[in-house]
């Protein structure tokens, strides 16, 4: 009799039932909650044909919303990259009183509902707000205009970059930077040639997350934008408006645009995660 030589043949036979059940449940939930709704968006958007779909997207108000959303993202992401690096550097490299408190403060936007951020800005910059009279006197328009939208989006997305970069900087410690200093590098050279290359993937990853959130932000922006069609409507707000107008195809067309952007970002994110690993 020849012994059975399948690898692991002598391992005790376990029931495969539990793993199969778990995998099945995970797949079913993913389908119900994520895949089906996403397919449905495209299905509804294209239900009345490509031509109507294109017409809906090319409608001036929707186009403007896409444009405005892009502008907001282009302003917010670089500012938050700079802010995230500065904050992570400060917290990782220096010890000062209030360091822990600062860390908590920076993460507040994650735990606060964005609508509260919107209302805070409303109370601060609004007509009856703290800075309102001064702003009116100097003819500076923040609310119901681009600056307000940018500010609220910045608030909501501010922790993303720092959250990605900080753990890496803490894990790497400051020895490489100190070594660079003693080799004669200036502060800027240390940053550009040692610190930045070390955090580049985490930084990109954080920026992608930040960008995705900036594009999709709804709650905070809806309070401060004023929902003026063709002027202060970002893409998520435009979708809601179209929906309220009972222009379901239009709403789904705009939503499909936003979903496409999100999918592109997702692919980017997955690829970056691979590179980082």
């Amino acid at each position, binding site marked *: 009799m020849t012994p059975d030589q399948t690898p692991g043949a002598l391992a005790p036979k376990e029931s495969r039932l539990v793993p199969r059940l778990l995998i099945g449940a995970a797949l079913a939930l993913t389908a119900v909650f994520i895949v089906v709704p996403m397919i449905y968006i495209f299905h509804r958007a294209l239900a009345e044909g490509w031509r109507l779909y294109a017409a809906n997207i090319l409608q001036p108000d929707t186009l403007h919303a896409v444009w405005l959303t892009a502008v907001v993202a282009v302003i917010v992401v670089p500012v938050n990259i700079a802010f995230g690096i500065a904050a992570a550097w400060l917290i990782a490299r220096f010890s000062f009183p209030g360091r822990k408190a600062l860390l908590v403060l920076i993460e507040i936007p994650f735990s606060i509902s964005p609508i509260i951020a919107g209302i805070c800005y409303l109370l601060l910059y609004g007509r009856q707000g703290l800075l309102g009279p001064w702003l009116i006197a100097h003819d500076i328009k923040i609310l119901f205009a681009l600056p307000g939208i940018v500010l609220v989006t910045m608030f909501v997305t501010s922790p993303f970059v720092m959250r990605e970069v900080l753990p890496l900087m803490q894990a790497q410690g400051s020895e490489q930077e100190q070594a660079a200093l003693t*080799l004669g590098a200036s502060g800027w050279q240390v940053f550009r040639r040692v610190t930045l290359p070390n955090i580049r993937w985490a930084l990109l990853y954080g920026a992608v997350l930040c960008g995705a959130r900036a594009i999709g932000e709804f709650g905070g922006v809806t309070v401060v934008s004023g929902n003026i069609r063709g002027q202060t409507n970002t893409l998520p707000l435009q979708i809601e408006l179209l929906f309220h107008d009972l222009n379901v195809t239009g709403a789904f067309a705009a939503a499909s645009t936003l979903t496409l952007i999100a999918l592109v970002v997702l692919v980017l994110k997955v690829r970056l995660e691979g590179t980082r690993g």
Partner: protein
Amino acid sequence: MTLQISNMTRRFGPVDVLRGIDLTIGEGELIALLGPSGSGKTTLLKIIAGLDWPDAGGLSVQGEDWLPKTAQERRTGFVFQHYALFPHLKVRDNIAFGLTVMPRAQRPGKAQIAARVEELLHFLQIPALADRYPAELSGGQRQRVALGRALAISPPVLLLDEPFGALDAQVRRDLRRWLRGVHDATGTTTIFVTHDQEEAFELADRVVVMGAGRIEQTGRPDEIYDHPATPFVARFLGLTVEIPVTLRQGRAEAPGLDTSALPRRAMADGPATLFLRPADITPIPDPASPFRLTALTTTGATHRLVMEGPADCRPEAEVARRSAAALTVGQTLRLRPEAGQIFPGGPGAQTLPAAADNPRFKESTP
């Protein structure tokens, strides 16, 4: 380059890390800062590099005051225990780093830098590693690269913090010899920090023993080994057995102790403490001795004896297995030291702040 440190102090919160360090280092010397962890040796090294600053005191190199200079201006190329190589750069670019960050006016040309790197790679015996990344190197290879990166800028003084601390024993011994060769070939004044006395004694021209923020002794390795200046140094060098004795006409006396092998000392009569290495003690069975054998363990070639004597004295001895065949736990033994150090004062008088909580001070081994 000559380097002068005078009356340097440094505090971290409530802890006095350096308490008045005075040290002069000559041109081309290879110096070991030896001491247990917490003795301030790494802080001293970082202050020389400009990565830390003293609260008071002076630091000058070639007569020039170094304290106002930044780490960037001093350009010492500090070598860290864990190498701190730049992971995104190839070995070649790691070594070139210090040259490529020089101000444009002084920076050598690309070809010159490449030639210098090539020369160093050969000098350090790692030309095959030039195009690898640090993650692809072994610990010993990384330390060679780290040293190459520092040497590339021809530092006025080469500073190494526990350079072999993260390596295994064999690589450590090889690299030690290699570093000695590098030093002799370049003639760069070199200071390295270590807690390993064997490493310090084998490598250094001069050893500076530090304890609790002070310099306990400075001297050639054999001087320190043969004549530890303080009880702290004696303990650190492995003289861990302390027996209270009475000095009479230069001879140490205590019940159960046969000091006939020790030379007479020109010291005043009175209470003193005899410091011994466990391996320098020969136990001789003697029913009249107060030292009773309480434990007997073996490490293969040697037996380790623990005894109990008067006044809470628990000396340990190491003897070759052959000669210990007749020993049994419970019997009494006379102790015959073959070599030792005597410091005046009874038990406790020698206890220094660093060793206060642990008279047998065991931090001498890593």
